[in-house]
């Protein structure tokens, strides 16, 4: 299973879920599969995909929130798994697209290409609903399960690197404004 196939399969299961996607190749391939206002493409802040998704899940208990992270990115912010476990938003799904490399910066290997195990990390930090999947059928099953039973869920998808051909919009403010509008938050913030 390539990363593009994993992203595409995940994308096709979505209805009105907001998606926070890691910068670089993951964002490019989510966009390539089909752009939508509810996709929040990051262009920097490597490591924070899961944290942004957690914050959104805390603010919006009414919406299932999906994060598409990478192994290199999550390795920068392993504490996020502990915070996700402690906050325990039942409606958060974190998919880690684990290709064992820094795909966007030229394919340098990450520690998951040797012995590092991000599902074990999630479990060790207290996340109870976890899976590691290695093909499309397993991913499909894990995504179904993540819908059927309360999370937070961490699904590590072992993927091969693929070659993105297009990029999402570069205008960060545009990405944010349409994302918030699609969530019904207008262009500003709620005043209590």
């Amino acid at each position: 299973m390539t990363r593009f196939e994993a992203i595409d399969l995940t994308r096709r299961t979505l209805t009105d879920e907001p998606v926070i996607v890691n910068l670089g190749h993951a964002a490019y391939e989510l966009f390539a599969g089909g752009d939508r206002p509810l996709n929040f493409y990051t262009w920097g802040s490597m490591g924070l995909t899961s944290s942004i998704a957690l914050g959104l899940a805390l603010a919006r208990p009414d919406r299932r929130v999906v994060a598409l992270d990478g192994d290199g990115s999550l390795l920068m912010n392993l504490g996020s798994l502990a915070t996700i476990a402690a906050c325990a938003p039942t409606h958060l799904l974190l998919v880690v697209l684990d290709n064992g490399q820094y795909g966007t910066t030229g394919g340098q290997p990450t520690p998951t290409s040797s012995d590092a195990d991000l599902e074990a990390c999630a479990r060790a930090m207290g996340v109870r609903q976890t899976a590691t999947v290695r093909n499309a059928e397993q991913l499909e099953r894990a995504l179904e399960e993540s819908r059927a039973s309360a999370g937070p869920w961490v699904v590590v998808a072992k993927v091969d690197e693929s070659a993105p051909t297009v990029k999402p919009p570069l205008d960060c403010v545009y990405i944010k404004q349409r994302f918030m509008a699609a969530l019904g938050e207008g262009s500003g913030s709620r005043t209590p």
Partner: protein
Amino acid sequence: MNPTEPRVAGVPRVPAIPPWAAGVADGLWDAGCRDVVYVPDNPLSHILAALERDHPGVRTVLATREEEATGIAAGLYLGGARPALLMQSSGLGNTLNAVGSLLLAFQIPVLMVVSMRGDAGEWNSAQVPMGRAVRPVLDALGVSHLSVDRGDEARDAIVSLAQLAFGTRLPTACLLPRRLTSPAGGGRS
């Protein structure tokens, strides 16, 4: 985190909440901040205590690192909240790329409340370089900041920085110097 007051066996430590901390908490409430993401520091514990006592409607989220906290705060804003981020000045150093490439690039407002180390009253030389760099770093990024010098200024400082942040969609920073939070003769925090 070093406790500022020794614990006496059998006597629970119930520190009085100083006026500046109550003022910060009131300001957060009055500014509509209902979500506070934090990495602990001794002075900040007074603000958290004031929130718990006076504004229990404010949700607090403990993060493991300030950069992570910045991401959580950004997500809270995307979901419609007006988030505040509490951290020590040393931790501000951990947030910088997130402040640049997430908050500023996407125009995501977050009100940062920063307890200072390395300024007047400091005793730990390791805290001084980052402490001295706080203002120049914020200026270099273009993050507006002001310092609270008296307890009775705290509420207004927070409310006005929140107005600037959430009104114009920019992060802002409220600095709490050691002379405010740990006056001379106070403990080593």
